[in-house]
């Protein structure tokens, strides 16, 4: 790579994506700085997954520009795949491979990265190394998926709802792994519909509704924009921010 340091890890301008009559992403723009943890917060169906999958190079936008690590999917797909770590929503890894076999498989795709033992230690799955994936708990499966994303020692990690469906202890365990990744200089872009997750993990948050960003800032800044007196009387949360912006609850339409 060139010696020039590019300040932003992700930049996209005016993304549009529609599926038939449904507009999933409607003019969304955002910039993620190197080393920061950036959250896309919004209800289900807000366009978070479509957005992150466009940034991951898995979907083509109908319009708009994407730059990841200063590179474009059109010209540098192979290079980008080596440098990104990706965790998708709802991936089921092969049931009847062991944890170590799964990691070895993913590790084989990358030209450089951590050893299987290091990966197991990072996500605290050493005791499960020879268990079949099907025998793991939900939290262990998510940590294995995260370890697969970390296999190539990525510069940038994309996580789509990494803790959805997990119990509080498993979520906290996963957050700790992400904290260690950031401490090592990594950048994270994640989607979530949990306010507490965004507050706990993210330096900056973009609140997404109906395919575009309706608010952007640090969690504290967003909460500080609240003017409604009923909210100020107690400690404001991102939930309150979302409500004051849209008149709806963030998790109204959660299944």
């Amino acid at each position: 790579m060139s010696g020039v340091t590019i300040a932003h890890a992700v930049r996209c301008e005016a993304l549009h994506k529609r599926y038939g009559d449904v507009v999933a992403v409607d003019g969304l723009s955002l910039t993620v700085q190197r080393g920061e943890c950036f959250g896309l917060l919004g209800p289900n169906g807000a366009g978070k997954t479509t957005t992150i999958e466009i940034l991951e190079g898995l979907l083509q936008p109908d319009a708009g520009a994407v730059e990841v690590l200063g590179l474009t999917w059109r010209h540098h797909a192979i290079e980008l795949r080596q440098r990104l770590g990706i965790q998708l929503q709802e991936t089921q890894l092969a049931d009847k491979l062991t944890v170590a076999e799964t990691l070895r498989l993913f590790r084989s795709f990358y030209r450089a990265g951590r050893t299987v033992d290091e990966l197991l230690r990072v996500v605290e799955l050493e005791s499960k190394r020879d268990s079949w994936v099907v025998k793991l708990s939900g939290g262990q499966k998510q940590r294995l998926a995260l370890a697969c994303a970390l296999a190539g020692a990525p510069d940038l990690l994309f996580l789509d709802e990494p803790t959805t469906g997990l119990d509080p202890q498993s979520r906290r365990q996963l957050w700790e792994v992400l904290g260690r990744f950031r401490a090592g200089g990594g950048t994270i872009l994640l989607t979530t519909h949990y306010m507490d997750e965004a507050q706990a993990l993210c330096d900056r948050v973009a609140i997404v509704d109906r395919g575009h960003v309706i608010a952007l800032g640090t969690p504290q800044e967003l909460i500080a924009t609240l003017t409604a007196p009923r909210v100020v009387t107690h400690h404001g949360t991102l939930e309150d921010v979302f409500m004051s912006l849209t008149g709806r609850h963030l998790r109204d339409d959660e299944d």
Partner: protein
Amino acid sequence: MRTEAYPPLVELTLARLREFVREPEAMFWAFIFPIIMSVALAVAFPGQEARPALVGVVDGPGAEALRAALAGHDDIVLREIPAGSDLSAIRDGDVQVIVVPGTPPTYRFDPERAEGRVARLVVDNALKRAAGRTEPWVAREDAVAVPGSRYIDWLIPGLLGMNIMSTGMWGIGFAIVQARLRKLLKRLVASPMRRTHYLLAQMLARLVFLAPEAIVPLAFGALVLGMPVRGSLAAIIIVCVWGAITFTALGLLAGSRARTLEAISGLLNLSMVPMWIVSGVFFSSSNFPPAVQPAIQALPLTALNDALRAVILEGAPLRQIASELAIMAGWAVSSFILALKLFRWR
């Protein structure tokens, strides 16, 4: 235990092999089923000895005399047939010919069945001799057994071909659709994995299991059923591998777009069942009219079965089956390229 990874193509192949051996149902279809099939065939086709004609006599005046005339022959078995069920007895193979008493008696049989025609001759001879016919002369008989000319000899290579087709197509098509359903394919293409590596690994894993899948029916046929194996082992291996590559490529193509297990099952049945019928598994494809022969000969299973029979039963050298190998290669290459183009990774 190793912790460092092999190259991706090896790891992908190993992953597929591990998943397969850890799946009891898949193991059953690949290994146990051919054995059961072969045992069933051994029971159905016990050996070369001539089987007796199965004869029924309808009750009526003179029936006892007919039964007496037919009794005591090695090559005739008399069976009771309940009144009124004579046609169903012929249909079900309980008897091959029915004798209706009268002057002269009537033979009721199905001339479209070879065993019916034989039984008629046997009964006719026995009755006429009993009625006093004298033979002008009796020919000397020189009984020889020509190995390789029995139906079972012809059938086994066809079953082997059918097995190579179905394990190839099911094994690949189903595994791919399952991975697609689980969004595992999508996760893999989000990594730097090369897509051709994934597809090649599926094929390589199948080829590893081809060896036992082919050896079981061949060894059973040769050792238990006395099927002759005239071709060189190398030629037989080449034809089996060639066929397996062809059908795994077709399996990739079948699985390239399907999004549900129902869709892939339908697609696989739709492509395989016609070939079971026309490609000479259970009966020769020459039974079909000349107008459709070019199409039948162009099918991959016809080519594989013809090639297998040629090398196993006739000991044909590879150059003699060059056209069959070319047909299979054509299917393999075009299917693989098309699968790669059409493949739905999400």
